[in-house]
């Protein structure tokens, strides 16, 4: 598990490796509206993959299919060696613990304090670790996002940036192997965005997680990504390092970098 961060070249050199997440030919429609039409992706250990696409192109839908919040109409989804098609509820819940998900709108439980927000998943684990250990974990997670002092606040008392951090802490507390970030910097000012990006990179270093990151923010993509996938018309239109895509001649790819 302790593989260091690796670049695309390194991975190419190391040859085949089992991916943490593998998507094969995913299709998803809502009624007549075909959103995803044949998307492939692989996410390897220690890797940050950024998915870029226009608003409404189905990025969130794609991410939700990976944690089975939505069910894909067609295609194969393999997460940490489990095929999502054949999985029962119990195994799915176990699997979801290993896959963190940061929602676009933070999705903090607004009737609970920050502490209760973090406690929520811990308390409901089949194997509970005891109050003290849980408290320690909560403190640790809050400290790692730099908000130890907010522990007794309600979500409504937090700013947008703080909410995002708390949501991140809530994701981290289960020690996921993979984290899916849905626009971690959307709606934040450039400075706060930079802080969140830095935080994500720190977290990756500290917990050694792989991440799938959706963003509109090209700065974020440049700094954070080992690899970028461009989502156009429901397919993985182009793929490569940020520099490779930046130098691409394809007008559809270029459109994102202008």
């Amino acid at each position, binding site marked *: 598990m302790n593989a260091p961060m690796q670049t695309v070249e390194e991975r190419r050199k190391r040859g085949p490796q089992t991916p943490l997440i593998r998507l094969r030919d995913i299709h998803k429609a809502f009624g007549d509206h075909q959103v995803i039409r044949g998307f492939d992706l692989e996410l390897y250990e220690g890797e940050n993959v950024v998915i870029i696409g226009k608003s409404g192109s189905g990025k969130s839908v794609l991410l939700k299919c990976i944690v089975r919040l939505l069910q894909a109409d067609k295609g194969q989804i393999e997460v940490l060696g489990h095929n999502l098609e054949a999985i029962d509820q119990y195994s799915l*819940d176990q699997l979801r613990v290993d896959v963190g998900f940061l929602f676009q709108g933070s999705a903090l439980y607004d009737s609970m304090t920050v502490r209760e927000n973090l406690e929520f998943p811990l308390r*409901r684990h089949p194997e509970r670790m005891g109050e003290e250990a849980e408290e320690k974990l909560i403190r640790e997670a809050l400290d790692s996002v730099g908000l130890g002092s907010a522990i007794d606040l309600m979500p409504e008392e937090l700013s947008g940036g703080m909410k995002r951090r708390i949501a991140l802490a809530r994701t981290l507390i289960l020690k996921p192997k993979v984290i899916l970030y849905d626009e971690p910097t959307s709606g934040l000012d450039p400075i706060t965005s930079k802080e969140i990006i830095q935080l994500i990179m720190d977290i990756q270093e500290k917990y050694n997680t792989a991440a799938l990151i959706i963003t509109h923010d090209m700065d974020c993509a440049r700094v954070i990504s080992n690899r970028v996938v461009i989502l156009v018309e429901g397919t993985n239109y182009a793929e490569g390092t940020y520099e490779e895509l930046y130098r691409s001649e394809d007008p559809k790819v270029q459109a994102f970098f202008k």
Partner: protein
Amino acid sequence: MKQEVAYWRSTRNVFREIGEVSLFAGRFFREVWRPPYEFREFVRQSYLIGYQSLPLVGVTGFIMGLVLTLQTRPTMVNFGAEGLMPSMVGIAIIREIGPVITALICAGKIGSGMGAELGSMKVTEQIAAMEVSGTNPFKYLVVTRILASVVMLPLLVIIADSIGLVGSSLVEYVKGDVSFRLYFTKVFDSLQFGDLLPATIKSFFFGFAIGLVGCYKGYHSRKGTAGVGRAANAAVVVTSMLLFIIDFIAVLVADIFYKL
């Protein structure tokens, strides 16, 4: 022709909705037995549903007793049946008016609250967030609320009944010079087990209907703020209708048992 199509479509939608609510109820009965039990949340919901509805239920109950007595009194006096007032009002309140009014009030207060709260949790993806952290939001949000309203509604009904009787006795005391003691003796003399049991059982079902529909509407709320509003609104409308249907069935069933 066009009208016919619209008519069929809305009929179909009604049946689809009935089917979905039944599935939702089925899920409740499956999950209510399974550990882990969300006891703390159940207690909290009971407090919110029960205790916070008390003032409203109390005031309505009191006025209900007052008005019912004031309005029936002249007629009864005309017939020279003044002495039957306590029994008549007592039975009316306990068997029918108390449970139905309380349930309707609670549909407005509790049902819409559940619809709005769960609806906004749905829309802001809080329910999805619970799911992706490997926990069961149905258990935490829905099972506790439905259980709490099943347990709390009969209690609220009993309280509304009692306060309603106090209101009624007040009118009798002022207008008919009937002492409180005499009033309540008459009420309890005329009440039979057959009056109390169906009313109590009915109240459980009312509680279940309020919790079930409120949670269902919220849990399946559409996107956006409008969706939340619609969920809260629909919770009240559908529950109110359901309450009368349940009441009708309950009266029919009670009648059959009464004959036996």
